[in-house]
């Protein structure tokens, strides 16, 4: 009886009620915190990683689909040209490159746009594999037809280059000496068209620009007679801002490999300045066998500049006697892998409707 009276503490019943209650409460709280942390750390989950991969793949695919020209490619990079996007009349060149599995740019996809430096575009890409599917031109097709758009020579935007403006008037014509690049020995070539970066010199636009294709001296690199072709363009036809002007040239007959040409842009009539053209200076990768020639006496005497300067131009033409098979990029298979898991791969296949040629 006495021991009963002095009993203190909790009963078994009380314990059995409080312990499960406390457990449920603590458990519920822990669950809430876990859910919160999971929701927050989205970066760490696989879903996010897969999602990022699909975004990267779709972006590369959408850009590749509009590729019109192929610059270079390997299993871990591709560089290509797409039509003008920013309204400057110039095609855009872009490069997608995987930074490798180790090093400063490990597991990153880098992107280069025109002359901008390579910049990180996507993180956490653990593997990158680019497979090209090419189509070859059948031997039975005339090479002349096939190579109609072949670039014989070009000087355009190069890394670290500077564009300069050159005015053309009666006393200041400008010229470009070049030896066309042909894909092999013994191949003859012919000029088809020129493309120059040009604008009208002034608002009244009453001049006439005279474009000539002339023979050139291999040693002095200066233009010499005869004039092989001549085209006159009214200044009023040129834009008020710089844009590419395509000038068709009637064929000048087949030329042997290594024969130089000189294109001159000069005064063709009217008053005052007739046009403004752009020249390119000091770029990395400026082509060999291409020099700017200038004159200050209306073309009576010419001076050749050094190789670090050239007219911003493209010369298109044809090849003859080209027997090699030409390859065209028809599709690209891209396999991207997450850096978080080795098993996660995302594959995408892109068809290139323009089938750019692989040089």
């Amino acid at each position, binding site marked *: 009886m006495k021991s009963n*009276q*002095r009993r203190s503490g909790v009963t078994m019943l009380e314990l059995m009620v409080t312990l499960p209650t406390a457990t449920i409460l603590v458990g519920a709280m822990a669950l809430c915190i876990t859910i919160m942390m999971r929701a*927050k750390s989205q970066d760490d989950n696989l879903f996010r990683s897969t999602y990022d991969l699909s*975004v990267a793949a*779709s*972006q590369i695919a959408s850009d590749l689909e509009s590729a019109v020209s192929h610059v270079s490619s390997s299993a871990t990079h591709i560089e290509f040209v797409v039509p003008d*996007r920013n309204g400057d009349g110039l095609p855009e060149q872009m490069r997608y490159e995987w930074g490798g599995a180790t090093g400063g740019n490990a597991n990153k996809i880098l992107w280069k746009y025109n002359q*901008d430096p390579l*910049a990180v*575009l996507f993180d956490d890409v653990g593997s990158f594999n680019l497979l090209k599917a090419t189509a070859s031109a059948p031997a039975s097709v005339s090479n002349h037809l096939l190579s109609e758009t072949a670039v014989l020579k070009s000087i355009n935007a190069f890394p670290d280059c500077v564009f300069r403006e050159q005015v053309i008037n009666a006393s200041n014509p400008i010229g470009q000496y070049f030896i066309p690049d042909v894909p092999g020995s013994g191949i003859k070539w012919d000029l088809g068209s020129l493309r120059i970066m040009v604008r009208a010199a002034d608002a009244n636009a009453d001049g006439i620009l005279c474009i000539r294709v002339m023979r050139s001296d291999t040693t002095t690199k200066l233009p010499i007679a005869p004039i092989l072709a001549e085209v006159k363009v009214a200044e009023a036809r040129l834009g008020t801002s710089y844009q590419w002007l395509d000038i068709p040239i009637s064929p000048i007959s087949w030329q042997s490999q290594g024969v130089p040409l000189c294109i001159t842009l000069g005064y063709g009539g009217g008053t005052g300045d007739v046009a403004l053209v752009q020249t390119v200076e000091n770029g990395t990768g400026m082509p060999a066998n291409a020099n700017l020639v200038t004159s200050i006496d209306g073309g009576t005497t010419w001076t050749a500049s050094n190789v670090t300067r050239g007219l911003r131009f493209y010369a298109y033409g044809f090849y003859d006697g080209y027997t090699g098979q030409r390859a065209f990029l028809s599709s690209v298979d891209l396999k991207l892998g997450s850096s978080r898991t080795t098993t996660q791969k995302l594959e995408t296949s892109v068809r290139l409707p323009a089938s750019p040629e692989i040089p």
Partner: protein
Amino acid sequence: MFILRSAKRLAKKSGVTLAEITISVLIIGILAASAAPIYANSLLKYRVDVAAQRIAQDISQTQRVARQNNSTRTISFTSSDHSYAISSISSLDRVSAPYRVGLNQAPYRVDISLLATAAQPATPLTSVAIVFDRFGMPDQGIAVTISAGAFQKRVDVAPTSGRVSVQ
């Protein structure tokens, strides 16, 4: 006899004393007081983190929609009402309403403390917008800084590529 015994039992019944209650309440109080700022801060940090992720996602989404629909899309931030809106994308709740996120409202309740362009990151602006063209390229880079309490995060959009990063 029975009454006397009951009275005795009542008198001797043990329980918690006032001192015990005072001490335990005091301990609980101290623990709670020390934990409360940590909890409040973690909530603030959490809100800033989640808001920054939402902004980053929405900017990327704007870029993707522009590319997919082959037309321009604009995302514009306003610092006065701490909100941003996306053109030609409808609200997640109502299709007829425009896509607008008020960052100073629940669940984020954070402020836009600095709006700037990537070209001039130190110049505060009252509003800033990025126009993604049909290729998903932005017309400029921007930096949006959001804050709650002492915590802040910056969402950067790189010019040209439109890559979004949270710092």
